[in-house]
C-alpha cells in the first residue's frame, strides 16, 4: 500500500504539475504584492490628507491621536458596553502598533499571507486543486496506462485509495507552497514579519446589530494557522470532488471542464437565486470559510461555520463514495 501511494505521488511529481502550480503562484503572488504595495502608498497619502498633516511618516502621532479619540469615546457614559468592547479591541491593537513601533499603514508578511489565502480560498485555490487532481484517473484512461495498473494483482479500491492519499499529500504541498511563496515574496517587498501582531476576530453580526461580546485579539501566526488550515480543508473537499469526476468521465479535458464550470457556475447561481434555499447546499457557496472568523459577513443569509463545514464534508464524503463504487464496478474499455 505504501509503495502504491509513493508511486502515485511520484507520478504527479514527474508530470511537473507542482512546478506549473508554483510558476502560476509566483506570477500571481508577485502581482498581488506589487498591487498591495501600490495601494499602501496611496492609502498613506490619503490618510495623511484626512488627518490634516502633510505626510503619514509621523505615524506615531496619528496613532496617538486616534488613541486619544478612542479613549474619549470609551469614557463617554452614554455609550453602551458593547460599543465600548469594540473600541477597546481597536485601542488594544493601536497600542500594540505604538509599543512595537509598527506602522499599521505598512503591510507585513503575516498580513499579506493571510489576505492572499482569504482571497484565494473560494476560487483560485480550488482551480489549482482541479489542475492537480483533474486527470488522476481520466489521465490514465486517456493514455491507456489504466490497463497496466488494473492488471496488477491489487484490488481496485486500493488503487483508487492510493490515488486519494497521494492527492491529500500533494494538496498539503500546494498549501505549503502558497505559504512559502507568499512569505518569500512579501518578505522581499515589505521587509517586516509581523507574526506577533494582534488580529481582531469574533465580530458577530446578529441582524443589523454588531454584537461584540466575542471580539478578541489573537496573534497573527495563530490566525494564519487557522486560515491555512481552512485552505487545506477546502483543498481536500475540492480534491475529492475532482477525483470523483475524474473517475466518472473518460476525458481529462471534460473532467477539468466539469469541475471548473461547476465551481464558477455555482457561485454565479447563488447571486441570481439568493432566496432559493437550495443554493445554500451548493459546495461553491460554502467555500468562503475564512469570512466567518475574520468577520466579513456578506455571504448568503442563513449560512454559518458549522453548516458550511458540514455541507462541504458531505460533498467530499459523498463524492468519495460514488467515486469508489463506480471505480470498483465499471468496465474499463480504454
Amino acid at each position: 500500500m505504501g509503495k502504491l501511494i509513493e508511486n502515485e505521488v511520484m507520478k504527479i511529481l514527474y508530470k511537473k504539475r507542482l512546478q506549473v502550480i508554483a510558476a502560476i503562484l509566483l506570477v500571481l503572488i508577485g502581482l498581488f504584492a506589487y498591487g498591495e504595495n501600490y495601494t499602501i502608498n496611496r492609502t498613506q497619502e490619503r490618510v495623511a490628507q484626512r488627518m490634516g498633516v502633510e505626510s503619514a511618516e509621523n505615524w506615531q502621532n496619528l496613532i496617538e491621536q486616534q488613541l486619544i479619540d478612542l479613549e474619549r469615546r470609551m469614557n463617554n457614559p452614554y455609550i453602551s458596553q458593547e460599543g465600548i468592547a469594540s473600541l477597546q479591541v481597536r485601542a488594544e491593537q493601536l497600542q500594540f502598533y505604538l509599543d512595537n513601533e509598527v506602522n499599521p499603514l505598512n503591510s507585513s508578511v503575516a498580513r499579506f499571507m493571510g489576505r492572499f489565502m482569504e482571497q484565494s480560498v473560494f476560487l483560485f485555490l480550488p482551480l489549482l486543486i482541479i489542475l492537480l487532481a483533474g486527470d488522476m484517473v481520466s489521465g490514465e484512461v486517456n493514455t491507456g496506462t489504466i490497463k497496466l495498473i488494473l492488471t496488477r494483482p491489487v484490488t481496485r479500491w486500493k488503487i483508487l485509495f492510493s490515488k486519494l492519499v497521494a492527492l491529500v499529500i500533494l494538496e498539503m504541498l500546494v498549501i505549503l507552497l502558497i505559504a512559502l511563496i507568499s512569505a518569500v515574496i512579501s518578505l522581499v517587498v515589505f521587509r517586516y514579519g509581523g507574526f506577533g501582531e494582534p488580529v481582531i476576530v469574533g465580530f458577530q453580526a446578529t441582524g443589523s446589530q454588531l454584537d461584540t461580546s466575542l471580539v478578541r485579539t489573537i496573534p497573527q501566526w495563530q490566525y494564519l494557522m487557522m486560515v491555512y488550515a481552512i485552505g487545506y480543508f477546502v483543498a481536500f473537499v475540492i480534491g475529492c470532488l475532482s477525483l470523483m469526476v475524474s473517475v466518472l468521465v473518460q476525458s481529462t479535458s471534460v473532467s477539468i471542464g466539469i469541475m471548473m464550470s461547476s465551481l464558477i457556475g455555482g457561485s454565479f447561481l447563488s447571486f441570481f437565486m439568493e432566496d432559493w434555499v437550495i443554493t445554500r447546499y451548493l459546495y461553491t457557496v460554502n467555500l468562503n470559510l475564512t469570512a466567518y472568523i475574520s468577520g466579513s459577513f456578506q455571504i448568503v443569509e442563513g449560512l454559518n461555520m458549522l453548516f458550511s463545514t458540514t455541507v462541504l464534508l458531505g460533498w467530499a464524503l459523498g463524492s468519495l463514495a460514488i467515486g469508489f463504487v463506480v471505480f470498483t464496478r465499471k468496465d474499463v474499455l480504454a
Partner: protein
Amino acid sequence: MKRNMVWYGILFIFFAGLISFVIGFYNALSIGIAVTQPSEPVSSAPADPLPERPKEEKTIPTEGVQIMALGDSLARGTGDPEGDGFAERVARGLEERVAEPVTLYNFAVEGMRSEALITQLDDEQMMQGIKNARYILVSIGGNDLRAVGRLPLVQQDQAFEESLRVYLVNLQQVIEEMRSVNEEAVILFIGLYNLNYSNPYAQETAYLLEWNYGTQQLLETDDRSQLIPTYDLFQFKLGQYLSFDGLHPNAAGYEAIAQRILENLPE
C-alpha cells in the same frame, strides 16, 4: 536512494503540516461556530476571551452643561490636526462663558448618513445622554448629498429629489425623537458649505442650496432648533479653511464654525 529521500521528506512535511492544520482547523471551527451561532451559549467559546474591563459602573453625570455632538466626520473633527473639531471648540468657548463645568460627549461617526443617525438614536443609553443635554450639535446630510454627486449626470436630478425627501423625513424623525426625551435642549444643525463656489452654474451648487433651504424650513417647525449656516462662511475662504483633503475643514475652518455657533447660542 535519492528517490527515497524525497519520499520521506514529503511524508515528513505532510505529517508536520497535517498536525498544525488539524490544530488550526479546530481553532477556526470553535471561533467560527461561536461567532456565527448566536444561540450557542458563550461557554463554548475558546479560552481567553476578552479581558474583562474594570466595570466601574459609570455614573451618568447630571450636573453642569452637557453638550452632545452627533453626526458625520465634521462633528468628529476629521481634518483638524488637533482632532478637536468644532464640537470641542464650542465646549471650550462655552466654558469661559458659564460658571458651570462643561462636558462634551461626541457620538459622531465618520461617513454617517441620516438613516444611520436614526439607528443610533435607538440606543437607550444614548437617549439618556440626549435627555441630559443642554445643547445638541448635529452635522448630518453631507454624505447623503455627496452620494448623489457620484451618480451619472442623467440620474442626478431624480436621485437628488429622492435623497432630499428621504433626508428630510429622517431629519424630522431625529428631531421628534430628541424632543420626545428633551424639550428644552437647543438643537443646532450645521449647514453645508460648498466645495465649488467658483462655478455659479454648477448643478451641485443648486442642489446644495436647495438642501440647506429644506433643512432650514424643517427646523422652523421647532422653535428651539436652528440651522447654523456655513455656506457664506466658507465662500471666500475655501483655501484658508479646508484641510489637505479638500473636503473637511482644517483647524481654522472648525474654529470659524465654532465661533459662529457660539455667537448663536442663547444664554
